[in-house]
C-alpha cells in the first residue's frame, strides 16, 4: 500500500495555540517521513523530516512525533503564528529503483492561524 492518509483537511487555530496534523501510512518499507509547507503561489518546501528509528524530532516550534508500531506520525506547531498559515503535506518515501527516494504525499491540511 502506497497511500498516506492525512487529517484534518483544514484547521483553524488561535495565535499562540498548538496546531496538530496527523498522518498514517501502511507500507512499512517507508524509511523517511518529511513534512512540506506550501504558501499560496509557491511550491512546497521541506519543513522538517524524521526517520523511523526515532520517536520525535524538534526544530524550533515544529515537532514531529512518530509512532512506528501504530504507523502514524504527526506534526505539532507550538505557539502558532499567523505566518504559519499555509497548507501542510505529510509524506513518506522509500528508496526506489535508480537510487532515489520515491515519495508519496498526503492529501494536505490547510492551516489558518487567526490573531
Amino acid at each position, binding site marked *: 500500500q502506497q497511500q498516506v492518509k492525512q487529517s484534518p483537511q483544514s484547521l483553524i487555530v488561535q495565535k499562540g495555540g498548538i496546531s496538530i496534523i496527523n498522518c498514517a501510512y501502511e507500507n512499512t518499507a517507508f524509511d*523517511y517521513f*518529511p513534512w*512540506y509547507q506550501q504558501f499560496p*503561489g*509557491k*511550491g*512546497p*518546501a*521541506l519543513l522538517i*523530516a524524521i526517520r523511523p528509528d526515532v520517536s520525535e524530532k524538534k526544530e524550533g516550534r515544529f515537532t514531529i512525533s512518530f509512532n512506528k508500531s501504530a504507523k502514524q506520525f504527526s506534526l505539532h506547531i507550538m505557539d502558532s503564528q499567523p505566518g504559519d498559515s499555509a497548507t501542510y*503535506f505529510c509524506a513518506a*518515501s522509500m528508496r526506489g529503483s*535508480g*537510487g*532515489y*527516494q520515491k*515519495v508519496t*504525499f*498526503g*492529501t*494536505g491540511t*490547510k492551516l489558518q492561524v487567526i490573531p
Partner: protein
Amino acid sequence: SAVISQKPSRDICQRGTSLTIQCQVDSQVTMMFWYRQQPGQSLTLIATANQGSEATYESGFVIDKFPISRPNLTFSTLTVSNMSPEDSSIYLCSVIHRGNYGYTFGSGTRLTVV
C-alpha cells in the same frame, strides 16, 4: 539545496493549444520530476525525467499528452498538449539529489484553459 526557476509562472490558454513549461535548476541533478496539483488538492506525479533517457510516466499520464524533454542535467520541459479545461491546474517541477532524501520544488506554473 537546489534552486529551481520555472517559467511561465502562470498562463491562460485556449483549448486545443499547447503550452511548454520550462524548469531550470542551478545545479546538476539526475532526477527531475513533474507534478500536477489541482486547486486545493495534493500533488500527483506525472512523470520522472532522467537525462539521456525517455521519461517514465505514471498511470493515467501519457507521452502524447505530456511530452517531456530532458536535454541536460540542469533543464527540462513539460508540454501540455491539446489542452482542455480539465488541464487547468498547477504544474510543478521538482528535483532530488542522489543520496538525499528531500525534494526541492519550483514555484509552479498556474495554467488556466478557457
